[in-house]
């Protein structure tokens, strides 16, 4: 109980510090502005459905800005404590290193929740507004009106939050052992890129003509690197829930949660050995 209380307080202060940062305000406002104005870019839809383009545009912005925010904020908030020696003051108290690190992670993940929630709210409003306009036009033309599934948007928000949690946890793992902030940010961004390209390893593993070394490497990559592409079912969840394979969201949530937990546990083990 005492341990939970300490983790809560570290997370709370981390959250309060994070939301005061200019980077958070800047990316949140820019993301919200771009998501809000996504209808204005619909002429770039390359023949896709208009709502699908708006949804993809908004979800892409959310992932891009969210990943940047998760990586920079996680690394920055941890290194600020280490460099300013506030970590020294705190860890000289009966506060476990794992409690400290878990608190930092939860604080950043809470910031991600605010980010996803606000951007999803903006995007949901844009999609619903445009869908109602298109529905009126479709009714006049006697076509089927497009629908926006609110439940799907909620599931999507949860998946995005989890995806950004996985990104934060990967950066936490790197930062727990790294010596510099810059290294953590670069390695964190490379980890995000690796997660986006993880399907390449899956393809390699599925190939029969791959060598033993390649297959071993691919097998390791598919286990160690989370597949961030599996969270890319936003447009289907929101615009065409019937096309989402049953169990896909649950599988993504389970896999994401397992990776997140593993990264945080390994980060705690690494941080325990670190000299402050």
């Amino acid at each position, binding site marked *: 109980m005492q341990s939970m209380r300490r983790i809560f307080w570290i997370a709370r202060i981390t959250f309060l*510090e994070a939301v005061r940062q200019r980077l958070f305000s800047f990316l949140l406002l820019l993301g919200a502005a771009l998501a809000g104005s996504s209808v204005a870019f619909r002429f770039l839809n390359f023949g896709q459905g208009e709502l699908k383009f708006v949804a993809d545009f908004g979800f892409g912005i959310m992932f891009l800005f969210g990943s940047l925010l998760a990586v920079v904020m996680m690394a920055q908030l941890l290194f600020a404590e280490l460099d300013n020696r506030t970590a020294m003051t*705190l860890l*000289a108290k009966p506060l476990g290193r794992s409690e400290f690190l878990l608190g930092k992670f939860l604080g950043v993940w809470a910031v991600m929740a605010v980010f996803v929630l606000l951007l999803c709210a903006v995007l949901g409003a844009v999609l619903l507004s445009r869908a109602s306009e298109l529905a009126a036009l479709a009714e006049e033309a006697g076509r089927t009106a497009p629908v926006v599934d609110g439940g799907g948007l909620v599931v999507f928000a949860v998946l995005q939050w989890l995806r950004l949690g996985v990104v934060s946890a990967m950066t936490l793992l790197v930062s727990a052992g790294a010596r510099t902030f810059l290294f953590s940010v670069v390695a964190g961004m490379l980890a995000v890129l690796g997660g986006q390209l993880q399907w390449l390893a899956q393809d390699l593993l599925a190939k029969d003509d791959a060598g033993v070394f390649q297959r071993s490497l691919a097998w390791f990559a598919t286990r160690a690197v989370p597949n961030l592409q599996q969270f890319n079912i936003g447009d289907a969840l929101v615009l065409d829930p019937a096309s989402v394979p049953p169990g896909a969201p649950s599988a993504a949530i389970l896999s994401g949660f397992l990776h997140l937990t593993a990264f945080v546990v390994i980060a705690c083990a690494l941080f325990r050995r670190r000299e402050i």
Partner: protein
Amino acid sequence: MTSAVSIRGLTKDFAVGIRGLKLRAVDDLSIEIPRGQVYGLLGPNGCGKSTTLKIVLGLVKPTSGSTSILGDDAASAEARRRTGFLPEAPYFHRFLSGRELVGYCARLSGVREDDIRASVDRALELASMTAAADRPVGTYSKGMLQRIGLAQAVVHDPELIILDEPTAGVDPVGSAAIGRMISAMRSEGRTVVLCSHLLGQVEQVCDRVAIMDRGRLVLEGSVEEVLARRDRHLLEVRGLTPAAEAAAREALERNGALLGEVSHPRRSLEELFRELVTGSKDA
């Protein structure tokens, strides 16, 4: 009764560079710090004081040797629960008020939720920070930062308080105030370990001192013991004329003593400053 801090055969090597060359920061250090005293740990920069403190606080693992706090292993949570620490040049979250900061530290130190308010008020009062407690930490002067640092170090009522350069960057008035706080802690029965470069202050407030150089202990003992020069004496004479001085010299020589030096006693710059600056005498 066990010592407040017991350091036995402590050695710490740091690996330097890619080849992992070893740099010995602390070399076979053994110190026993008795309870209820103010203990000064002195030495030049790079002598291993801070590394020693970090090991005592469980922030760095020793290469060999052992440390204990009030009988518990120094790295244990129980030892840290009974210890308060003020680092050198402390930095705190600027957006928190002094009261919020001390409350936050109290919660991390295991103070019960029901007792937080009273503990925070008591610590703020001890550090003379009650009046500025509701201001954001970002608006504090250096001296106030040190004092709020002191408040967070004592908020959980620790038996041992470790202060690393508590008066660094603080003016003589603030420095004297911190010196009085340290004396107040001693009178409450707490043990204070003080790391400082201000030798004058250490001399004033410490009961015992240890001097380190290149990771080794070079001198340890009570302040009286280490500073007294048993082969010399000091006489304070008023109205000394040249004739009286010559007579005194002759009388001393007749009795086998040698008059070494005749000079005027000096007051310290700190005494002069406190005498001249308004309000300093009471600070």
